[in-house]
């Protein structure tokens, strides 16, 4: 054989690959194979769908709109944009134990955090604690880069500037007395955010790092005073700030505000009356937005969402239906030859 190959230098290699004879499997899309497959897949999907649906049904959600555009809303007077430092209180009651851990969200609708030019208007270098960007912020931050006096804005940019600044306090009304529900503001942002992605400059005290800079235009307080209660939760690693910086995917979104995990509320919110004290600051009327707070507990698959379960059920059912259709087709076109 070797000899022969020597004789014919041009002879092509006789391998399965070069001769295109690789062992191959041909999936035949014919009813005979497809029907059982469809039935199996369909049944599996239905099973998953049922499980998802049950899980989702077990999740409790409470949504409270406090935009205040309606006359009867407790926050109606606060919705006036000219009103400063307005506080309104929302009363609500819970019929049965709201199982813990309860997540406390605030929600905005019609708010385009995914607006492209809004999204790019930030300076990751600044937020990483790099002091060089304090002097000269990233040019994408325009027009929130320098103030009128050409002093750099730190942190700069549109996302930062529009930080959500409503604050909430939750009270349980026990025997007519307001009992404050402790809200846990730790761990509401991604761990990677406050440990890796965002950093304060290594300057102590922190405020010195901000010398020569100005706070964002809309902010009442500079970045190093975001959380007066906890010095470690200030600057760029303030968790509320981090939650806000993680831009929402869709115009109707909610963001985690606090978790209710402490004290008497470890097991959740007991049935009863509650009042929510809202420091109403954030203007939403200019874009017809709405604000709300949401209490929810979560399952292994996240918050309440029946869609996925329904989707599985629908697709699973479709598969089964199709297999029936195929069966009919098969019966009509195939069986005469089946013997």
């Amino acid at each position, binding site marked *: 054989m070797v000899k022969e190959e020597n004789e014919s230098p041009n002879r092509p290699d006789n391998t399965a690959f070069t*001769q295109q004879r690789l062992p191959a499997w041909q999936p035949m899309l*014919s009813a005979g194979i497809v029907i059982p497959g469809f039935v199996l897949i369909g049944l599996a999907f239905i099973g998953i769908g049922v499980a998802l649906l049950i899980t989702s049904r077990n999740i409790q959600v409470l949504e409270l709109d406090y935009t205040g555009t309606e006359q009867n809303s407790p926050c109606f007077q606060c919705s006036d944009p000219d009103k400063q430092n307005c506080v309104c209180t929302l009363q609500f009651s819970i019929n049965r134990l709201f199982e813990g851990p309860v997540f406390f969200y605030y929600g905005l609708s019609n708010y385009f955090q*995914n607006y492209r030019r*809004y999204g790019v208007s930030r300076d990751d270098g600044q937020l990483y604690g790099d002091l060089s960007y304090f002097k000269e912020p990233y040019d*994408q931050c325009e027009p929130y880069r320098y103030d009128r006096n050409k002093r750099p804005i730190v942190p700069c940019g549109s996302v930062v500037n529009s930080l959500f600044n409503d604050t909430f306090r939750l009270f349980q009304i026990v025997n007519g007395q307001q009992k404050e529900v402790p809200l846990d503001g730790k761990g509401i942002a991604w761990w990677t955010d406050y440990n890796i992605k965002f950093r304060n400059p290594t300057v102590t005290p922190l405020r010195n790092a901000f010398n020569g800079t100005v706070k964002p235009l809309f902010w009442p307080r500079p970045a190093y005073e975001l959380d007066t209660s906890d010095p470690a939760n200030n600057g760029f690693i303030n968790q509320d700030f981090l939650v806000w910086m993680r831009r929402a*995917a869709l115009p109707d979104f*909610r963001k985690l505000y606090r978790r209710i995990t402490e004290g008497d509320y470890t097991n959740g919110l007991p049935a009863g009356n509650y009042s929510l004290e809202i420091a109403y600051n954030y203007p939403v009327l200019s*874009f017809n937005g709405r604000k709300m707070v949401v209490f929810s507990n979560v399952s292994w698959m996240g918050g309440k969402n029946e*869609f996925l379960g329904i989707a599985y059920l629908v697709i699973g059912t479709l598969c089964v239906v199709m297999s029936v259709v195929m069966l009919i087709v098969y019966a009509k076109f195939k069986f*005469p030859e089946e013997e």
Partner: protein
Amino acid sequence: MASPEGAAAAKVKLGPRKKKKSKKESKTRSVYANILCEEDDNNPNRQYADNKIKTTKYTVLSFLPKNLFEQFHRFANVYFVFIALLNFVPVVNAFQPELALAPVVFILSVTAIKDLWEDYRRHRSDKEINHMDCLVYSRTERRYVEKFWKEVHVGDFIRLRCNEILPADVLLLSSSDPDRLCHIETATLDGETNLKQRQVVRSFFDLDCDFDPSKYDSVIECEKPNNDLNRFRGYIIHRSGRRDALYKDNLLLRGCTIRNTEEAVGIVIYAGHETKAMLNNNGPRYKRSKLERQMNVDVFWCVIILLVMCSFAAVGHGLWMFQYGDKRPVFDVLSPEGTDLSPVLSAIYLFLTMIIVFQVLIPISLFVSIEIVKICQVYFIHQDAELYDEESDSHLQCRALNITEDLGQMQYIFSDKTGTLTDNKMVFRRCTVAGVEYSHDANARRLAMYQEMDSEEEECPSRGGTLPRRDSVGSHHSVKVVLRSHSTKSHRRTGSRAEAKRASILSKHTAFSSPMEKDITPDPQLMDKVNECGSQMDFMRFHSQPMSQLPSDLGDIMDFFIALTLCNTVVVSSPDQPRHKVRMRFELKSPVKTIEDFIKRFTPSRLTSGSNSSSSSSLTTNRSSTKGCSSMLSSPSADSTLTKLEEEVTAVAVAAHAFSPTPPTYDGKIRNPEGADLRYEAESPDEAALVYAAKAYKCSLVGRLPDQMTVDLPHLGKLNFELLHTLGFDSTRKRMSVVVKHPLTEQITVYTKGADSVIMDLIKSPNTGNSKGKRQKKIIYRTQNYLNQYAADGLRTLCIAKKILSKEEYACWLQRHLEAETAIQGREELLFESALRLETNLQLLGATGIEDRLQDGVPETIDALRKAGLQIWVLTGDKQETAVNIAYACKLLDPEEEILTLNADSMEACSLLLEESLHYIQAKFLCGSAKSFHADFAPFHIYPSPPPPPPPPRHWSSSHAAVHRLGLVIDGRTLAYALDRTLEDKFLAVARSCRSVLCCRSTPLQKSMVVKLVRNKLKVMTLAIGDGANDVSMIQVADVGVGISGQEGMQAVMASDFALPRFRNLQKLLLVHGHWCYSRLANMILYFFYKNAMFVALIFWYQFYCGFSGSAMIDQWYLIFFNLMFSAFPQLITGTLDKDVSAQTLQQLPQLYINGQNSEEYKPYMFWMNMIDAFYQSLVCFFIPYFAYADSDVDLFTWGTPVTTIAVFTILLHLGVETKTWTWMNLLSICFSVALFFTVALCYNASCPTCYSPSNPYWTMQRLLQDPTFYLLCLITPAAALLPRYFYRACQGTIFPSPVQVGRRLDRLPAKNPHGNILSLSGIQTGARPDPERKFSVAKDPRRPREESQRPDASLSVRIELPPEGGVKYTKNSQERLSVG
């Protein structure tokens, strides 16, 4: 030799040529010897290009700018650069500008690297060539010294040794050959392996001692460099003022190899890039395939879709901005100046941004991917063992890399006959001499035996025969190794396979004919006559009787065989020493009678030039003066010539009486010529066939010298024929002649051999007055009859004639001829006229019938191709009868078929004929159209394509609705009229309703005109296949040109897109590779469009949720690398390896080819179907995550990444659904893509927490992988997205399978009895009946496994057989000739 030059030649484009030439020498080039001048500026040759070649395109410095410049000629590249640059404009940018450059830079650099690599290879081969050695005469050292090729200059003297490759175009000044010849092999130039003779320049012809360059002082004036290999004109001016003409026979071309000549010396005339070989190098051809043209339309549509989407988004954005009015939302961003952007302005900015975001829709990598896939396809076609021809050790060559898929869409095949359908292996079959036919029955039986052997050989497995053959292989092995250095390859075919094996050992080195061509069994009757004739002549010679007393029929027989032996250009060689021609001077034995006679031989009558032409033309009248003339030659060695002459003369005197049939023994160098098996190498195979035929009758050519041919005749022994002139064959004259001096009769005789049509016209009309004349007339009449008979048997006919010239006639002709030979202007024309003057009033000797055997498998191939819906036209230069018979033999014409023969003598007649034919066809077939359908033939008619009827622009329905069982035969003259603008439509109307068309006696130009006409008028895909130079124009005109790398040189191959070893390979090339390439590429292109549209649409839907702001939830990295990385490999693998139907089934069911002809894999509506599917799938992929993550705190990229992942899964699984055959490579590539996506995502998401603004997806993927919802989404979404397509495919496979799917099902049948199953399916009806629904019903067969679909009502496919219309042949030929001509 497959020299590096050869390798380079294929790719070389002309490098820069120096244009420093001064204006005054605009017409000619003067070359002086370099040794006369200093090597400085005074050298008159310095302005000519030196021998250094540079075929590279780039230098180190120029690479980048030049390559980029070239790449930007491609519009797509400019577009993508434009988009990338758009990203640098802050107001509109969408991505990180640097990142946006990535794809363009990637594509550009891939191409640049490819170019660089190619250029580097060229550079390497250039370097290798430039550094080859040769001997150049050094002025200072006064001897030849080794120099590199690149150091050779025009005007240098170089010494060439045997087997050396010529470094430049060299004028031959001296040769060690006693005949002053130099043999060269031109295989690298034209692929012809036979040796060519070149002559030393006439003035140096008589140099006896070695050529001394230092004494050379002549000037050469020649034409400027040009690329015509067959032309060289000029003259050499000696110091004495004498001018000698130079011919192409004096020029040795660069790249050729010196053979059989120990040493030659020449002066370089053209060097480097100005050599003819280099001027002949053209770059590879660029053609655009039909599929690509179609694709470009859809790329255009993609641009439209892109613009629509962008405009939509821009308007949407404008409105979105507008709705806020003066109320400025907190998330709004002011312009950098702090002012509000007007909605209109931001809409305009957004339009540009969207173009960047949606750029993926225009597939940047599509062009690159197509190129890669095509290269892979070419590789596989190359590698196909079935397209490999063992005998010639050649395989298919793809010379055009970018039209592989066109092979799958052919509709018309135009084929040459000789050498393409036939073997061009000429076998002597029978002959007629002096009006008597010799049927050679035994010979016919022998040929039949070879055929049987062939089939037997093929049946027994090849391995069986290896053992006995081995020793022969071994024994020849050493010989082979030694001879490898000659490395000449033969393309000669040999008889049977076993034969081929054995012969191939030798034929590697020499172009020997196979035994089938050589061993001719003589006809006993003729043999007797030859013997008788020989003995009589011997007797007469012995008794000094004049030869004219010989009975005229015997004389004719002898003349006939002498003509066969002499009238050719065959080179004789012996097998023990391949390539060393037998050189024997038989002058010592020849019947030299006088010294005068001897001197005459040395008189350079043919070779003298103008200065002494007077003396040579007076050859006959003033013989004695020639001696004086010859000694008056200006060459320094005249004296030595004389002494040599005298020596020989004395030798002759001694040996004058020693003439005997046996060779003299004193010459030790001479091998015994009888014992040696002589081999003949001929330029055309029929020449060799005739010489072998003569040899069978003991009239063998034993030696050939430029001025003398030695023939061994029965009883007479060896005779020397003094060869006075050879008037070579040309296609206009269609004949060749030799002028010889007959040694026995002392007469100057002209032997002419040529096509019967021309020779018959040149025959001297016999004087019917005497008996001789009557006999002549009878001979002519009978010969004509036999010729017709031969032609009817499909033999090639040649007529042999002779003419005896009186000395006066000869002298008269010679004078004019010499004038012609020495003319510098219009020499060719003058020589042509001179030949015409000579070849008149011939005397007919006889005619031969040579069989041009059909190649193996030609009828089967034609049958299969026809079943595949291909129309086959044969265009040949052969005569009508021969062509028709070959057509019958190869099943092109069917005996049951009616044949329309068109022969007309005038335009009007032709028009009438066409009209009448049309009427006839209409009358006969249109009314009884139902009857005209034939089951075998079904694919030709309405082949119902899927729902929408085939679009009218292709003239499909019209051109194919009525193909009848009709054959059309048209001859060249009629064709010329038919191709006229006024008649071409009618001609086409007739021709396309015929099943087969045969054009005979057509010129190369007509061939190309026919192809062009069909291609342009019918808008069909055409393929031209041919093997000879006469097919080149047709090959170039056709959509796909195929060359047969046969024996007629390489011109056809050089012009072709694909070169095949045999005609039968066409079947697999078209039916299998063509089908595959087409279906693979078509599917890949559609997939590409789908893929990009689907991906981009995701972002488009998102615009509705982000205020049409150009925001993308898909990270810019994924968006940009999606095409380049994540989805690139599987489609390439599928595009390269996918097989919709197995090769076996494709070949057994040629009907499946119609799939490609009708472009069924890629129809315009399919693009839109794919687009719709893409939009549907993207909707699913968008909205399932949308609703799944609604009301959650998901952030932009944590939501976008699952969308991306799902899209990647869906796209890959979509490919999986569309993949017809899964191999481990498909699986691997898909797994690899998924793995690559996750790896890149994980790495990307884990690197650099602050980079990649604005997306900054740090740790996103890592978190997603911990989220069960992500997995649930990845499961449900692709399933939902692909469900409809999968369902459709499943139903299609069951309810309305396409022919291809049925074919695929055949593949899956158990292999036990595949043949039976195939047979059961071969009754497949592809729409013979008008019911379009039932286009592919399948014959019922009990063996058929269950999967076969069959409608109960359409139970059996019916083979509608027409009753044979025996006898109703409608042959217009004779009637029309009478009535119209």
